[in-house]
């Protein structure tokens, strides 16, 4: 039986990577990810894994080395945060476009300027359209579990796409929480041996990666990429089902909390969902029929399923820990699209919270539930998108 341990999210994910024992890791340090790759590098130095670690001069080089190693046929990992992810930009699209299942924990952090090292979702939300699968985690346990499942999802023969495992900087990466590790052998057999379908190092079958594709075929290749993303939802659910058998922990496309009989709800990603669940309980005691939906799979976004889960509600607030300046928050855009296509759904508002590591407090969530309750009782929407927890 697995024993509960008290560890940080970085330590938990580093141990997931140790248990998987990938072939190659190319990484560059950046707060708050540094401590994860430092721990992994010590596993390499201590001979606890057989991984070839490549020290590089930047994140652009880290992702480039990962792309080369993955095309060669290896099981490849890296990890980053914030500016590091931003510097990887052009290579992210190449990893996805070349169909290379690179696994990358992203310890979410605000983007400069102004310079800030603390947690928000601006980095990964900006990488939304890069063609990577995105899983989001609420705590160290989920970050660990998502990392292990990511290998099975990304490497699935019908998918073969890179996966980002998102976890909030500092709040998850550096806070010590109670969680459970699976046994090494259990993880090893769950992820299995990696067999690349088209390894460059198979010299008997020479092949080329990264060709020039002109207007006569580029459109068709993108159509194919769209098709493959469409297969991800089922694979995520199947992998989750298998993962439940080894862990007892249930995962889906998203998690719902007291949503079935709710009238108002929050849609909220990451660590703040934990705080918000407590507030759901608290406001329920005060007579507000509150619930919560926490997306786990953000790319591809499960539009139909999210719409079905929310359609019976009267008012919903989508909480974004990132802003799209001149637009609504990124999660709001998705939920709003999902509900419009669904034809019916709740009144919808958008709150921007917690940027640059600003604490998300229970009173913030409570104020939002009170506002939703007013809207649900026939009040009008005053502002669609609004910053909360801001001094004014």
């Amino acid at each position, binding site marked *: 039986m697995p024993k509960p341990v008290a560890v940080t999210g970085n330590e938990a994910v580093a141990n997931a990577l140790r248990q998987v024992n990938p072939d190659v890791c190319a990484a560059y340090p950046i707060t708050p990810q540094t401590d994860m790759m430092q721990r992994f590098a010590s596993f390499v130095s201590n001979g606890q894994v057989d991984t070839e670690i490549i020290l590089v001069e930047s994140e652009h080089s880290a992702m480039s080395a990962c792309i080369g190693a993955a095309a060669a046929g290896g099981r490849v990992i890296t990890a980053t945060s914030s500016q590091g992810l931003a510097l990887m930009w052009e290579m992210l699209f190449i990893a996805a476009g*070349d169909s290379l299942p690179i696994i990358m924990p992203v310890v979410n952090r605000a983007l400069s300027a102004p310079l800030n090292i603390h947690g928000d979702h601006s980095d990964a939300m900006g990488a939304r359209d890069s063609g990577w699968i995105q899983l989001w985690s609420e705590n160290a346990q989920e970050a660990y579990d998502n990392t292990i499942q990511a290998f099975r999802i990304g490497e699935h023969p019908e998918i073969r796409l890179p996966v980002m495992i998102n976890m909030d900087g500092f709040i998850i990466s550096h806070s010590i929480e109670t969680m459970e590790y699976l046994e090494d052998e259990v993880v090893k057999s769950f992820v299995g041996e990696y067999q690349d379908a088209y390894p460059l190092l198979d010299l008997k079958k020479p092949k080329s990666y990264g060709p020039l594709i002109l207007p006569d075929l580029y459109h068709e290749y993108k159509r194919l990429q769209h098709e493959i993303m469409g297969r991800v939802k089922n694979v995520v659910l199947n992998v989750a089902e298998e993962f439940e058998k080894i862990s007892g922990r249930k995962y889906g496309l998203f998690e719902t909390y007291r949503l079935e009989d709710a009238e108002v709800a929050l849609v909220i990603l990451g660590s703040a969902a934990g705080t918000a669940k407590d507030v759901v309980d608290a406001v329920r005691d005060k007579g507000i029929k509150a619930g919560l939906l926490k997306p786990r799979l953000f790319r591809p976004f499960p539009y139909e399923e999210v719409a079905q889960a929310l359609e019976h509600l009267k008012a919903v607030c989508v909480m974004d820990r990132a802003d799209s300046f001149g637009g609504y928050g990124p999660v709001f855009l998705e939920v709003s699209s999902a509900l419009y296509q669904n034809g019916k759904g709740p009144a919808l508002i958008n709150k921007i919270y917690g940027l640059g590591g600003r604490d998300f407090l229970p009173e913030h969530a409570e104020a939002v539930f009170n506002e939703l309750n007013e809207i649900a009782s026939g009040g009008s929407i005053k502002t669609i998108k609004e910053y909360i927890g801001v001094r004014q």
Partner: protein
Amino acid sequence: MKKWNELVPGAIILDAGNAVQFKTGSWRAFRPQWTEENCIHCLFCWIYCPDMAVKTEDGKMTGFDYDYCKGCGICARECPGKKGKKAIVMVEEGK
């Protein structure tokens, strides 16, 4: 032309050596011109050519494959020639 659902994901090219099907010589603005009497058959042109546009036979230079030569001029640059006279010089296409 292939349909989208007939393509290999990741645009990986599985047929080795199919670059021969794409004749790229029309990109050329300058063509290398070979003067046999100045050639010492050192094959610098052959080894430096970024494509495979230098034709050889029995270890000797025999000319250029203009279907693939893009006119980069590296061969002319590297050609040592004989007694100060280059065996390869670049001349403008159409002249």
